[in-house]
């Protein structure tokens, strides 16, 4: 991994904001970990793809878009309910980068009818931090 990339979550979120800002022609300073990509920005699927490709390049990590961008979130919740599994457990397994508190927030939000997608820059930063730590462990 390039040495100039630091691991602190704040730095990762700032780097992601720098990556995201030009895609939407906004000032990176207006973005924060709480910025909702799909609700606060005009983010579409191709934008997520470009962000994912940018994460590959910026952080030199493989990115599984479905996990990084919570794209199958509602499907996982429905599937958990269908099989009788606790949705919290299902989401924790599918999104190991999210804290238990964030899983609870996400689950509460997704149960609100008509609520916009919950994905935030902070969620993406958590995925990157998780991936960096995982691969640092793998190559150690």
């Amino acid at each position, binding site marked *: *991994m390039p040495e100039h990339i630091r691991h602190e979550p704040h730095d990762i979120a700032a780097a992601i904001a720098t990556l995201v800002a030009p895609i939407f022609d906004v000032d990176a300073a207006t973005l924060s970990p709480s910025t909702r990509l799909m609700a606060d920005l005009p983010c579409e699927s*191709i934008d997520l793809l470009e962000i994912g490709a*940018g994460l*590959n390049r910026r952080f030199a*990590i*493989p990115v599984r878009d479905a996990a990084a961008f919570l794209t199958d979130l509602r499907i996982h919740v429905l599937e958990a309910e269908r099989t009788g599994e606790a949705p919290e457990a299902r989401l924790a*397994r*599918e999104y190991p980068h999210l804290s238990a508190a964030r899983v609870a927030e996400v689950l509460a939000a997704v149960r609100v009818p008509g609520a916009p997608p919950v994905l935030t820059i902070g969620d993406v930063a958590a995925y990157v931090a998780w*991936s960096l730590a995982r691969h640092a462990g793998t*190559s150690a």
Partner: protein
Amino acid sequence: MRGPVLIAGGSCELGLALGAALAADGMAVALTARDAAGAARIRAALPEAAVLPLCARGPERGGAHEDFAPAAAEGDDAEDDTPETLPERARAALGAAPRLFVDLLHSRFECLLAGADPAAIDLWASRDIAFRARLLRAVSRAMLAARDGRCVFVSSSAAERAAPGQGYYAAAKLAGEALYRAVGVELAPRGVTAGSLRLGWLDAGRGAPFLQSRAANAPLPPTGRTVTVTEAVQTLRFLLSAPATAINATTLTCDGGFGALKPTG
């Protein structure tokens, strides 16, 4: 012409000729090879070009919910010669990320459809369709990050008119055309275009022994001859050029007009 260029399946005669032409244009060229023999052919013909191994392993998954295995991109230069690591390996070899990509990969799986071994069918689907999808995914994704790229798939006139025994080959080529068309549709707004070129009979590669074995009075294209390697190279060279960018999400045919002929009994 912009570059650098990455040629997958570059150890075939057409790949070597294309690599030489693009190198003569001043481009940095990298070609993939699936084995040592192919790598040796590339090194012999194009000593200045980069040679990158490309195999069908992986992507490794430690579990159903784990991400791709770490790649060479992470400084972990394990023997990772999968499609997922190819863009980064090409960038490292060429000094810059490839902006042009040509897909010449093909296998020689030809038999009557109902005569194929079931296990061989699985292998064909994995090698000739899924592998290409993985490769195009990885390359187009890397190009998307730079918002610049051009991908060209070398298909075959068999995709439209397959002879008996070419059903699997034709199906793989049709699948490839569909994949490249999808990239052209989805990523062109972000600077990445793609298309396919169906080549007719070519007196090189798999076409050479066929042409030598067929009857002397067998029909020829209206041009009265088969497509030459030079013609194929120059057509590809044009398709990779900036003026051809609008040829996107489509398939062109270069077969001397053979496909337009009325079949003869």
